Each structure stands twice: as structure tokens, then as C-alpha cells.
């Protein structure tokens, strides 16, 4: 997927004038917010769990090599294979290589953000394979050839009517006069179509919410059960995951799961939580003959030891975007690449470079709601600010803003001049604005006044009035 992150302001404008999208955004995030709150309130130890989650991930990140090697050892011991990949290209090639080796034609897929990050579907298609998304949301956007707009609800930007239209266009072998007016019916139709695909698939690709070092297991959570069919029915199961998803023990995995479902959907636990440990063993009733883990770095290890390390604690619950007023205004596609919302505003500059993705960490009011709900307590606003510091260091900000800030900084370091300038500004604006109390237009403030009035100041500064008051008091007591 070619990023359009550099065009964020234009993307945002488009999203803001898209009435259909705005209707969806007016309702959908609130549902997530309320359900998460109820789930958190129901669990007295929820805040303590967040502390534990943060500490767990910090420990893992400090010992990442140890746990990854332990994980690899366990996977291998059980007859699986681990493919270490530094870049997205290496991961694509590893997956294509596995598919080629077994002569695969059809590949089913569970939902995975990493597969979006490496663009595996396009790559497999270009190489003659047929990838089929089996998560309902992913399936819908695959039919529409759109990227996901949310990390746990890929078709977040679509209404029921949109989905109906998409299905009618895609499922031409079904009767045209069928009724598709309810979510239940839409789901049933997707199920019916996908059943056939599950049976045809030679390889199933899933992501991993967690990798467990002590057992060599990978874990996925779903609400549709599609992940299980994706990984059990085909001969080969490929897991694509990044290195930050490892935890030491099953108990640690349980901690992550308790935080994940509540933060994401407000569920106590997802409908399906599936642990995969190696290929089918003698005596197993089902399971794949081959089990591969494609273990991807793609820039993560470069964040270790930097001011951005904490972002690797992310468990991809989506709570930050559900609570973000910017995401809630423009939706996910405006962010121009795989990861939207606050987590995207920190991750995308790391993965795409600050030159391509510099708008995202700037497009935040630092309202702090994301950090307030992040189950891993990632200080997202602080990290966005660190990206702004990188931009500042590299001189990437607009020249007018830099010059304005430099001039202001010069004055602010000189109290007498600063107060004099403040007096002049207050006086001038106060005189001009006192008649109406506000300005509908003001030079140099068009960004403000195009949408709102600028209230007029009272006319004199507090410092000025305070000094006069103190002088008068002194005189009075003399």
C-alpha cells in the first residue's frame, strides 16, 4: 500500500466533507467508548492490571533477544519453523516461499495488521496466488479493494447499506432478489461464501496477538471463529507476527488477554481465543501438517533503547483511536497508511520516516485521552511530541511557523520586552475589538477566523493593571 500520509490535511478535508463517513463516525466510536468503560468499571483490579501489563512488556523489551530465542527453540522442538525476517520484503518472500513449496493456489487469511503492513495480499496476487480474507470486516474491504480504517474493525468506515451493495456486486452467483437488510443476513451470506474458500485453501495465514516463549505457542483472538478455520483446515499454517508480541509465560499471556478484550471491545474475553502450538502431532484429530512463524522486525528493534521504545508495548486493542477526537473527526483512511489514530501517529513516523508521516504527530491537541485509556499505559502524546522534536531538529516544519516561534521565543526570554509587546497587543486589539467584543476577521489569524470569531481582549494587560494597583496602594500607605 502506497502511503498518502504526507497528504494528511487533504485526506482529512475529504473525510470531513464525506457525509456518509461523518454519519458513521458520529455514532460508532461512542459504542466502543461506553463498552470499554463498563468493562473496566466491572473489574476492580483493571487499573492494577494496566500497571502489570506495562511492567510485563517493559521486562520483555529489556530481554527481547532471550525470549525470542526461547520462543524459537520451543517452536522448533515441536516441529515448527521460525523464519526471522528483518524487512517487509523478507517477510513477503518467506511467505511466498512457503506457499510455493507446497504448491498453494488459494490462501485463506485471518485478520492481521502485520499482513497489511507488509502488503502480503497484493504480493501473493501478483505472484499468481489467491488470498482470501476470512474476517468479515477484512473480507468486505478486500472485495472493495480498500485498506482497513481501524485496527480491530477494518470496515469501521462502512454502513450496513455499503456492505449490502458490496455483496450484491461481488456475489453474482446468488439470486439478485435476495433480501440483505439485516446484519444477521449479511453475516450468513459471507459465511456461506467463505465456507467454500476454507475448504479450498492450501495455506492459512493468521497473525498473532501474543507469542508465548515458554510453550512456543501463538495466540489469536477473534469473535467469528474464522481464525480457527483458517489455521486448522489447510495443510499449512503460517503465522505472521512482529517481535514485540512475545511474552514469557502462559500466565503473562492471560494478563494480556484480560486487558486486550476489555480495552478493545469491552468484552471480558473474545468469543474465540486460540492457542497454536506446533503442527499436528500423531494422534491429534486435526491441525496443519506444517507450522511456520514468520517473525518480523521491520524497524521495531531500531526503536529499542530510544525515546520511542514504549510504543512497542502496544497490544493493538484500538482503544486509543476509539477515544481520539481527531480519529473521530476524520476516520482511519485519512492517516494514509496501515495504522491510524494515536498509535499510528507514533508508529507511522517510525515505519515510514518523519518526512512522510510528520503530519500525524502534529495533528493532535495532546488532549491525553489515548494515554488515559491505553491498557499498556503508552505515553502516546509524549511520543508524538518526540516526533515533533525530530522534525524540529531536522528543520522540517513550515518556515513561517519556525520563524514565528523563534520571534516569540526571543521575546519570551526578555520579560520587559515581552510585557511591553503584550501591552501593545492588548491595547491595539482591545481598541479595535471593543465595539463588537470580537473579530470576524483578523490579519495573520485566518486559520482561526475562517471557522470562528476571535474574542477581543479587554484592552490592558494584567501585569500592567497589577503594577498600577500596587503603586497606588504604596502611595496610599505612605
Amino acid at each position, binding site marked *: 500500500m502506497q502511503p498518502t500520509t504526507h497528504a494528511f490535511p487533504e485526506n482529512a478535508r475529504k473525510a470531513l466533507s464525506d457525509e456518509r463517513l461523518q454519519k458513521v463516525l458520529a455514532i460508532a466510536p461512542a459504542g466502543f467508548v461506553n463498552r470499554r468503560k463498563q468493562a473496566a468499571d466491572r473489574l476492580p483490579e483493571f487499573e492494577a492490571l494496566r500497571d502489570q501489563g506495562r511492567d510485563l512488556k517493559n521486562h520483555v523489551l529489556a530481554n527481547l533477544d532471550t525470549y525470542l530465542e526461547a520462543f524459537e527453540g520451543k517452536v522448533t522442538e515441536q516441529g515448527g519453523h521460525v523464519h526471522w525476517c528483518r524487512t517487509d520484503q523478507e517477510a513477503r518472500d518467506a511467505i511466498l516461499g512457503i506457499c510455493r513449496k507446497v504448491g498453494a493456489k488459494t490462501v485463506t487469511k485471518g485478520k492481521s495488521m502485520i499482513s497489511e503492513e507488509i502488503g502480503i495480499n497484493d504480493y501473493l496476487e501478483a505472484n499468481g496466488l489467491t488470498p482470501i480474507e476470512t474476517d468479515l470486516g477484512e473480507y468486505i474491504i478486500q472485495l472493495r479493494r480498500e485498506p482497513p480504517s481501524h485496527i480491530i474493525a477494518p470496515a469501521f468506515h462502512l454502513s450496513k447499506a455499503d456492505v449490502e451493495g458490496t455483496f450484491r456486486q461481488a456475489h453474482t452467483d446468488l439470486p439478485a432478489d435476495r433480501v440483505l437488510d439485516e446484519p444477521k443476513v449479511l453475516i450468513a451470506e459471507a459465511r456461506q461464501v467463505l465456507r467454500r474458500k476454507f475448504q479450498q485453501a492450501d495455506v492459512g495465514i493468521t497473525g498473532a496477538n501474543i507469542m508465548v516463549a515458554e510453550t512456543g505457542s501463538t495466540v489469536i483472538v477473534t469473535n467469528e471463529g474464522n481464525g480457527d478455520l483458517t489455521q486448522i483446515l489447510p495443510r499449512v499454517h503460517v503465522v505472521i507476527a512482529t517481535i514485540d508480541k512475545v511474552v514469557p509465560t502462559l500466565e503473562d499471556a492471560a494478563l494480556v488477554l484480560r486487558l486486550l478484550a476489555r480495552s478493545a471491545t469491552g468484552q471480558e474475553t473474545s468469543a474465540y481465543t486460540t492457542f497454536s502450538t506446533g503442527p499436528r502431532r500423531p494422534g491429534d484429530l486435526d491441525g496443519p501438517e506444517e507450522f511456520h512463524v514468520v517473525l518480523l522486525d521491520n524497524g521495531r528493534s531500531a526503536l529499542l533503547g530510544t525515546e520511542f521504545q514504549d510504543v512497542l508495548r502496544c497490544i493493538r486493542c484500538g482503544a486509543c483511536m476509539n477515544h481520539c477526537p481527531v480519529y473521530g473527526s476524520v476516520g482511519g483512511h485519512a492517516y494514509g497508511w496501515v495504522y491510524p489514530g494515536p498509535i499510528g501517529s507514533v508508529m507511522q513516523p517510525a515505519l515510514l520516516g518523519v518526512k512522510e508521516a510528520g503530519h500525524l504527530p502534529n495533528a493532535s*491537541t495532546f488532549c491525553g485521552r489515548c494515554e488515559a485509556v491505553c491498557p499498556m499505559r503508552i505515553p502516546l502524546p509524549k511520543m508524538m511530541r518526540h516526533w*515533533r522534536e525530530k522534525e*524540529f*531538529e531536522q528543520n522540517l516544519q513550515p518556515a513561517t511557523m519556525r520563524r514565528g516561534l523563534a520571534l516569540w521565543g526571543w521575546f519570551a526570554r526578555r520579560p520587559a520586552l515581552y510585557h511591553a509587546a503584550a501591552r501593545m497587543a*492588548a491595547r491595539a486589539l482591545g481598541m479595535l475589538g471593543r465595539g*463588537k467584543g470580537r473579530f470576524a476577521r483578523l490579519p495573520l489569524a485566518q486559520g482561526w477566523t475562517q471557522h470562528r*470569531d476571535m474574542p477581543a481582549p479587554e484592552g490592558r494587560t494584567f501585569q500592567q493593571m497589577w503594577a498600577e494597583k500596587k503603586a497606588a496602594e504604596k502611595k496610599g500607605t505612605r
Partner: protein
Amino acid sequence: MADTRPAPRVGLFVTCLVDVYRPTVGFAAVKLLEDAGCTVEVPASQTCCGQPAFNAGDRATARDLARSTIAAFEGFDHVVVPSGSCAGQIRKHYPELLADDPAWAARARHLSARTHELVSFLTDVLGVTDTGARYDGTITYHDSCSGLREMGVKEQPRRLLAKVEGLTLNELPGAEVCCGFGGTFCVKYPDISNRMVEAKTADIKETKADTLLAGDMGCLLNMAGKLKREGSAVRVRHVAEVLAGVTDTPPIGEPIKSGRA
């Protein structure tokens, strides 16, 4: 037995927006503090807390301004700020900004520990339960983000407002959602900011309140500007004005009556 402790010596950090836009808030703050038994001083060497530079990624300027603010406010028992945002900058970010500066790290932490947002200082430190004010009207209250999430200001203004005679509080739906100001955000991304403040003013109107209060001038200018542009009659004031009973200045964005300077 009479309280014989000396009056707490409070340094008022005025904030740039109160200084230039609304001195009334500064005087309301002084009145509230003096009524509660404090001695208030306003160091003339203060300028800006440095947040604009800090949030623009210019740490060098932010650190310079942090140092001069620390120097300006040394020696006070408490530093009080009529803004959750500027108070948050001093309390939460100064220690981090100067952590690796051996000459200033301890001084930054010391100032941080003594710095308070105005309303929470009145309730939590001074134990004020009633400011003795009167305000005839129905108000609604917006929780400014930094005050709420960096300084823990939530119940304190509501407790004091509940004691203001004649005042009714209608809670604002989505009171904890950002109004879209965000410092330079509102001019860097005006369309998104507009969407956010539009949603906010719609919520404000839904409360049927005649007055909107909040604790931060940035948010107040943003919301007042939008309400006025939309032709709304809702009056907008800083919470300190109502708590201090200092409401002779016209609300934010309203014309100054003739005869006043």
C-alpha cells in the same frame, strides 16, 4: 483557638492569555486566594511557561523558559495558575525537561511539587468549601484536557460551583472530550479543529445552559469564538470569575460597555 500560622505566600503565574486577553481572571484569582487567607504576589519577571515551544518540538527554548520561570517563582510557598494547561506544563513537564540538567533538575522538581491549578488549590490545599459567591444563571462546565488529565481537576470546580447561590449546573455531555483548541493545532489543522469545536458547541447548546464555564483561557476563547460565530447567546466565562463573584466584565467575546477602558 485562632490560627496563628503565617498566611501562605502564593506566587500567581498569570499565564499569557489571562495577561493579554482577560486580566479579570487574574484579579478573580487574586481575590479567591486572598479571601482564603493567602498573600498573593505577582513576579514581574515571569513570561510564558514555554508550552508552545515544548509542544512544537523546540526543547531548547522550552528549557530556557522553564529555567526563567523557576527562577521567577523561587521562594514562594505555592505557585498558583488559573489554567490547567500551564500548570500541567510546570508540574508535569518541567521535571522531565530539566531531568538531565544537574544545576536545575532539583529546582524543577521543587517548583513542580509546589505548583497548583487555581480551583484545585483552593479546595485540596486550602480546604475552601464555599467562596460565598452568587451567580444567577444555569451554567455548564467543560473539563479542559490538561486540567482534567494532567492535574486531576474534575470534582473540585463542581463542588465550589454547587455552593454558589443562584447557580444551577447542567452537566455537559462529553464534558471530557477535547474542544479542539490544542494550541497551534487549531490553526495548523483548522478543519479538524472546527469539526471538534462544532461538536462541542452542539453539546453546549443541548444543555440549555445560559453560561459556559471552564478553567482554561485557550479552550474558552475557542468555544466562545465558535458560539459567537454561530450566533449563540450563551455567555462564556472563566470559572474563577463566577467563583469570585467578579462578573462585571462582559463575558468573553461580548462588547465592552461604553465608559470602560
